[in-house]
């Protein structure tokens, strides 16, 4: 059987995690190709709706990666994001999606190795869990004006 390659959406803050991913690149450290990075100004900008939409659109796992606690460029956006991640995990459980599919991580801009390791670890964790239980036929969202 073909090996399942998880799709991970990684919301990375511009100041730390995104730069860490960049650092990983310039250090020639590889991380799984299924990790799709969405750059955000701060993880504090990431809403529960973004996280649910990622799953709705077919992500097998979602990573929110910001600065280390105490190092947020906007003071405490990462702390707020962590609370939203916890809120969203509860929503996921109600839907019937394993809460472990959503994760929060913190790293500094220079920690390219940590970024690559985190991206690899979440990919392996999701690979073990299997594809998202809500993946499959994607019904489009009917939105009224």
């Amino acid at each position, binding site marked *: 059987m073909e090996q399942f390659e998880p799709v991970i959406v990684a919301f990375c803050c511009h100041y730390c995690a995104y730069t860490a991913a960049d650092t990983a690149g310039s250090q020639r450290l590889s991380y799984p190709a299924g990790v799709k990075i969405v750059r955000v100004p701060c993880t504090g900008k990431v809403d529960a709706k973004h996280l*649910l939409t990622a799953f709705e659109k077919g992500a097998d796992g979602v990573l929110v990666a910001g600065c280390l606690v105490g190092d947020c460029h906007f003071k405490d956006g990462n702390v707020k994001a962590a609370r939203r991640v916890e809120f969203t995990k509860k929503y996921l459980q*109600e839907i019937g999606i394993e809460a472990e599919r959503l994760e929060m991580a913190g790293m500094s801009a220079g920690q390219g190795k940590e970024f690559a390791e985190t991206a690899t670890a979440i990919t392996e964790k999701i690979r073990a869990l299997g594809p998202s239980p*809500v993946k499959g036929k994607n019904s489009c969202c*009917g939105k009224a004006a």
Partner: protein
Amino acid sequence: MITAERKPLEELLGYIAPYGRILLLGCNECVTVCAAGGRKEVGLLASALKMAARKSGKDVEIVEHTLERQCDPEYVEEVAGLVGQADAVVSMACGCGVQQMAMRYAKPVFPALNTRFMGGSERQGVWDERCAGCGNCLLGVTGGICPIARCAKRLMNGPCGGSANGVCEITPDVPCAWHLIWERLEALGQTQQYMEIIPAKDWKTAQGGGPRKIIREDLAE
């Protein structure tokens, strides 16, 4: 404001199970402020319902819409077209909005929220009960603190013997309303107010007299 909280997803999935096309209708007023049923929560719930349905092999179409106010006929009228295309409505308004929809449209209307109480914001993300709508406000003689909504026993002349160190006997998280009233009257230099006995309350103005109605003759048509 009127405060509310979302119902468990399982209950909502049970309501909508027989239907294929749902209008999920939020309200821009109180329930938006208490983060229960505004546009954002409509978006979250729509995603959640769609994913949960998909997981169980079903496909449900959800149309999202949020009204300025769901407890007024003028606004509720605006969604006639959307209701016409839907098999059922799930309302994220308080119970007043849900009923406004149910009175207007001959379609099944389900509540997505549990309406909790009339309250205020204590701090970001925290709301507490402040008024029980008794219909004859006592705040003018109780230092601006409600002995009905905020005292577990609704005492007119408290505190009871369970008040200790400013805390109500029901749980240490609840301040004693009468302790608060005394402190406030003291700060205002109005402790003489406390010496006045408040007579037994006539609950006819509350729900004791059945469903209530306000008629403003000058406005009513």
